[in-house]
């Protein structure tokens, strides 16, 4: 009775007496707690992820303009946007480019990341130095990377051409990297791998350090060579890491945008060979103001990425049990 305000705030303190009731109430309040603590996160997720997502689906069925006009209100146009997309060659080209990019970049980037991770996992003195070097491109903003590589690739005075020329003793002349329809997309792939590989390397490095050394000791006892150790111990132990890396790289690769936008412009120069779905959507939505059409592209893109990710998960079946 000395603290009436407290008992007012916490009526359960005095009313609940039985042990079972107490446990029940406690669980209930814990559930309440959990919800309360998630409110800020849920609110942000709702505003910045769920709302735009739902809006994109709704807008995909309208002719929404970027700058709305009160005299010509947005109309519901049914499946018109999707019908047009079905016959839109630039869109087909962009989607195919995305698949081309993923099919080339994901295997190369993943295996290269593993290779680098094994290298920097050696117990040598400068290991930390090399880890930093390989990771540093990840920290640089993609826009900056793109601008720098734009100059590196320059046909007349770019460093890459000069290097190839010197290394081949002048046999291979300067290539018009970003303007040649055959070379432009591979050039973009190369710089993307260079920029992104450090991230996957760090994840693999963490995976490598999780592998108990006793496994290697046992393998050595059994007379396994280093290559056999890598094949039968390291790789199986990295299974979950690999699944995560492949999945993350695939999704990141599908989102290819910045490099192309900065270096090749909104129509995927040259001749649309570097256009991607995201570039095309932004071009339609923001350059041409067709938000409805761009939303339809985004919806189809979402479905494609969803199918690919689900397919990968089913195919690779992550092992859930950790111990």
């Amino acid at each position, binding site marked *: 009775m000395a603290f009436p305000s*407290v008992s007012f*705030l*916490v009526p*359960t*303190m005095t009313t609940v007496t039985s042990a079972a009731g107490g446990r029940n109430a*406690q669980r209930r*309040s814990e559930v309440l*707690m959990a919800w*309360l603590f998630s409110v800020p996160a849920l609110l942000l997720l709702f505003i910045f992820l769920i709302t735009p997502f739902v809006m994109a689906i709704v807008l995909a069925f309208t*002719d929404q*303009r*970027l*700058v*709305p*006009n*009160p*005299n*010509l209100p947005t109309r519901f146009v049914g499946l018109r946007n999707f019908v047009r997309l079905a016959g839109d060659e630039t869109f087909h080209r962009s989607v195919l480019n995305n698949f081309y990019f993923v099919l080339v970049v994901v295997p190369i980037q993943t295996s290269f990341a593993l290779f680098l991770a094994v290298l920097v996992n050696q117990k040598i003195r400068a290991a930390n130095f090399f880890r930093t070097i390989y990771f540093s491109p990840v920290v640089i903003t993609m826009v900056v990377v793109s601008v720098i590589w734009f*100059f590196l690739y*320059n*046909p*007349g*005075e*770019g460093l890459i051409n000069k290097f190839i020329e010197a290394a081949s003793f002048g046999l291979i002349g300067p290539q*018009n990297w*970003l*303007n040649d*329809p055959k070379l432009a997309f591979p050039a973009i792939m190369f710089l993307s791998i260079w920029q992104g590989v450090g991230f996957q390397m760090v994840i693999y490095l963490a995976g490598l350090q999780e592998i108990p050394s006793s496994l290697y000791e046992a393998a050595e006892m059994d007379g396994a060579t280093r290559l056999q150790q890598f094949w039968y111990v390291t790789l199986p132990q990295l299974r979950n890491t690999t699944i995560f890396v492949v999945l993350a790289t695939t999704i990141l690769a599908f989102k290819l945008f910045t490099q192309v936008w900065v270096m090749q*412009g*909104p*129509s995927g*120069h*040259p*001749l*649309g060979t570097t256009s991607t779905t995201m570039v095309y959507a932004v*071009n339609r939505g*923001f*350059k*041409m*103001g*067709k938000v409805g059409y761009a939303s339809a592209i985004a919806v189809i893109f979402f479905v494609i990425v969803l199918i690919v990710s689900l397919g990968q998960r089913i195919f690779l079946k992550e092992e859930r049990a950790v111990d």
Partner: protein
Amino acid sequence: MKRLFIVISVFVVLGLLLAACAPAATPAPEQPKAEQPKAEEPKAEEPKAEEPMAEPTTVTVWFHSGKGEEREVLDAQVEAFNAANADIQIDAVRLPEGSYNDQVNAAALAGDLPCLLDFDGPFLYNYAWSGYLTPIDEYVSDDLKADFLPSIIAQGTYGGRLYSLGTFDSGLAIWGNKAYLDKAGVRIPTSIDDAWDKEEFMDALAKLQALDEVEYAIDMKMNYGQGEWYTYGFAPIMQSFGGDLIDRSDYQSADGVLNGPEAVAGMEFFQSLFEDGYANASPAGDDDFYIKKTSALAWVGHWMWGPHSENLGDDLVLIPMPKLGDKAVTGMGSWNWGLTSTCENPDAAWAFLEYLVSPEEILHMTNANGAVPARKSAIAQSDLFGEGGPLNVFVQQLEGGVAVPRPVTPAYPVITASYAAAVQNIVTGADVQSELDKAVEEIDLDIEDNQGYPLPE
């Protein structure tokens, strides 16, 4: 006890949240505080101020952050205006030029446009059509209107009403390196009446290309990248041959105009400049003409006056646009200021715009950026643009009917995006006819989707 602890912690968290939210509401009173000293000054002069002195009206202004000189002048103008007008305070925000249109679009979508902002030429019409801008006819007297270059008034007029005024117009012509031109024995035209024709232009390119110092006879500024430059800079080539971006009789279709035989001939000529090695499709930088001097000519606008004159000095000549087809055509139009319909103090915003378009302030700006002054009275006072000035060719082109405005239609953003994409592909070697057909298809579809862009009211 545990439960008590939980409940208390909940209240602590809620309290923290409230505390965190609270400051968001408080900064409002802070701002006037900073301006109070200014508001008090007039009070001292009028001791019998019955009502407390009104707080200065704040006008938000957005402008594109262009070249350094332009930015400095505008900053100085804002400062000078604020100092001279205690009752109006200009709150100016600079936005990067590269994404300026995107940011204005986003602000319009969010209903968050400032009072006064500048638009890149024809991007204005889409906003006027959508009702985001207020006509300024009532502010602009006939005398004032008559003093502006006709191109400025044409650019600002949509649906018969004046929506914007610019402080300068643009000029596009060919800059030449006199040393190279003399060495190659090329005649240098000095006025629009003796401009090169196509034959003479091609002859000049061939002779200049033959010089040892020259890698590419003409710099087409392809380093600007796919954007407004492609339409502004290269549509005149097509127009000189008799094509155009859209049928201007009713702005309902580009078919037969943008993909007609004249336009195709123009763009094929343009393509040949790159295929024949006269122009570089991917220059390493901006300075092939004025620092490296590996190009003898530069196809670019007034904005390069500063760097060109600094580096070439007396060797710099300005050559009027050649008559590639029946007539010479060049681009025009530039940044122009419009008032938004959501503006709460249009009078105050107009006061600032009126200040910007005063002849002195126009010259202040154009002396810095080399653009054509928007008013005839300012041109008369200008050393650069007046009779006999080094940039007088631009004025001749604007007044002599050489300059053609970009299409006055809300469909402009789509027209320019489609055309620029076609230009990019044509430079790379794509088939001209099919690229232009594709652009026409996109433009016509957009006009159809917007029900022909009916005029408001």
